[in-house]
């Protein structure tokens, strides 16, 4: 009886699939066939250097949200932290391109530990800089108050390497993350150091309230997780 049931299921399944294969192809084809094409400039891998410049060492299969509103799935990408650019591996010709930043609004991929991560593009203006700039940031908390992490890699002084009695200057890079808290009115507050004091200084007028909140939740903002908890706490409170 169970075998009969199994065969029946199998047959119905196959017949339904066979019936609609042509039609379903037609609909999905039209969606994917005419997607906006990725555009970008040829990427020259950096010569020998010291320090890590990529967020992910291996090519990650991604979902890209384009500025046209379309979602493109399955493209191989790496996030280059030093340039703050998405590097795309075009698998049809195995060439690497820096994707035009204005084309990418957000992307989803997996990090080196296979954890899903979500990056989006934000536009911030530093008080020290007159110009607004577009940054790719990792989304840590979303809500009324949002928390973003910019995986910034900065230039360090060149290091000297001795090879075959010769001296060579090698570029060195250092990791210096920056955090952005997005306020309900759309403004961004920049946090460059993970400390309780620096965090409280972001909200000078509500220091006392925030301090009590952190004490109640046993938070010290010394780690990213702790900072994220603090922002979640703010979202849950009537801050």
């Amino acid at each position, binding site marked *: 009886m169970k075998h009969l049931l199994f065969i029946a299921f199998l047959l119905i*399944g196959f*017949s339904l*699939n066979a019936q609609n294969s042509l*039609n379903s192809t037609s*609909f999905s084809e*039209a969606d994917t066939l*005419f997607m906006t094409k990725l555009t970008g*400039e*040829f990427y020259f891998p950096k010569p020998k250097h010291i320090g890590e410049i990529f967020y992910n060492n291996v090519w990650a299969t991604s979902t890209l949200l384009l500025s046209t509103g379309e979602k493109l799935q399955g493209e191989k990408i790496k996030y280059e932290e030093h340039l703050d650019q998405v590097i795309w591996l075009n698998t049809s010709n195995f060439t690497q391109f820096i994707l035009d*930043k204005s084309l990418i609004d957000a992307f989803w991929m997996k990090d080196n530990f296979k954890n899903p991560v979500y990056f989006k593009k934000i536009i911030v203006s530093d008080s020290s800089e007159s110009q607004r700039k577009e940054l790719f940031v990792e989304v840590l908390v979303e809500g009324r108050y949002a928390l973003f992490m910019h995986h910034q890699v900065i230039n360090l002084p060149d290091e000297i390497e001795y090879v075959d009695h010769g001296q060579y200057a090698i570029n060195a890079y250092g990791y210096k993350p920056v955090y952005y808290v997005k306020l309900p009115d759309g403004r961004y507050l920049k946090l460059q150091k993970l400390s309780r004091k620096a965090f409280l200084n972001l909200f000078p007028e509500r220091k006392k309230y925030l301090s009590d909140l952190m004490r109640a939740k046993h938070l010290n903002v010394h780690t990213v997780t702790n900072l994220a908890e603090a922002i979640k706490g703010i979202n849950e409170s009537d801050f």
Partner: protein
Amino acid sequence: MNIFKRTHLTVAVLLFALSGYNGVHANEQETVYIQTDRTAYVSGETVYYKLYVLDSESKKRSEINKVGYIELRAPKSNPLLKIRVNIIAGIACGSFILPDTLQSSVYQIVAFTSFMKNFDENLFSHQEVVITNRNDKEFNFETYLFDSKESNLNLGTDTILRIKTDKRIYSGREKVVVSLVHTASNANVAISVYEEPQLPTSEITIVESLKDLTNAPRNQSKNYLAENSGKILRGRIIDANNKQGIEHAIVLLSCPDTVANLQYATSGSDGLFMFQLSSYYDGKELFFTIKDVPTDQKWKIELEDPFALTNKWKPEYKSEKGFSKEYMTKSQDMAYINKTYDTNDGDAINKQSINRPVTPLLYRCPVKPVYPSEFVPLDSFPEIAVEILPSVRINMQDGNYQAHIVTRLQHYFINSEPVLFLDGVYLDDINKIIPLNSERIKKIEVLSNKRAFGDLIFNGIISIVSTSNEILATVPAAQSLRMRNDQTNYGKRFVTEDYSSPDIVETPLYKQLLYWNPQVDLLQNQQKDLEFYTSDNTAKFVIKLEGIADDGTPISARASIQVNNLHNETAK
């Protein structure tokens, strides 16, 4: 063993679930029905229409296609009018104007979607109309006449749909109130109130049209995709010598703009290629070209006309009786009066696009443009290149011009051949830009690095924008093609005016169409009142109502009123 059995069951359930998921589109087939405000017109008049796109099985509004095609054709002739419409939630409403030059004859309005071309053309919606030329006095209709048949239209006595008017007989310029009640379910209907034509008609109601719809077999040789995001333009790349389709060739499409834009498609086994044209391309000049044609080959592009129908229309000769010359002369006179007094017969419909028009930009990175007008005047593009574009070189080799660009590689630079764009269009021949001088060029953008556009790689890009759209004056090369894209038809919305108002009391008002409203939403058992005014035209008017109930039931009903304009009678 238990594990084995469980695996069996899991696989079966998974397969079933999978098939169920795909089954959203299983056997999906659509049908269309076109409803017009009248069945008889005078050339130059407006035809108001409502197009229903329905799932052929459930008869509910279909969401497969967002583009519909309507054409007007005469017997044994090609389409005389081609209209592309946007379908929103299975419905498209609008209007089109009949050309003044149409001869008096019987015509056919055909409506279909591109996806329906995978099936038999008989499934398209066909509506026959009589059009009288405004200046025709002969009315020579004898060749093609309909079989004047008794229509089995519901006369408003149905218990499901009731049409009630506040009076039976009205005088000229009097307010009419029509009450509608649909008892079965909610419904969306269109209503028209028009003078009963004294002409034979082969009018088919929505109820008759959708009756006995059977699933037709799909023509496997055709593969028309559902146009769910915009018009899909199809074409073929063929060998000009033997007409054979060329496989794996790349076709480029761009159109005049101030920015370089591009789309590309790769041809299939029979040379077939497709482009999806968003509203960005509406009414624009399209430039197609085949990339990298081998020098010893002659390839060309052939585009498919989305309106092309295989079957010509051959109406059957049935009867010569029933044509009223008096009615046609009256219609002509009214059309003449309305034209003379320029009577308002509609407002423009707000354009509703089915997709956000996105410019298919070739590059989306910031580039510093060069404006030749900021430099000393230079006589030709090679001179401009030498003087103000340091990374560009124009050489002449064997009598042919060649462009080169200095491209950066990892540690050195090479000279490579860039792609050229003039006024946003991919240029198939460099000679077209050679004579351009500083006066004729507005700006130049040069991207010297190797760039990707999808799977295409370009060794640099030079984009020139001319001061007066020079691209339109160029002639396409042998492997190129140029055509103007049609525009989405929106038409006008019928407006109801208070004809008794003192502002228009002196204007003669002779209307054969008193009212047209394509979007009347009826709620179950709730009365819907519609108001309009009679004109100076003394006649019997038909109130015709057609639509689809929420459960997919087609609805059709009609009633009539009499208008007696006493002022006219006295004058007579």
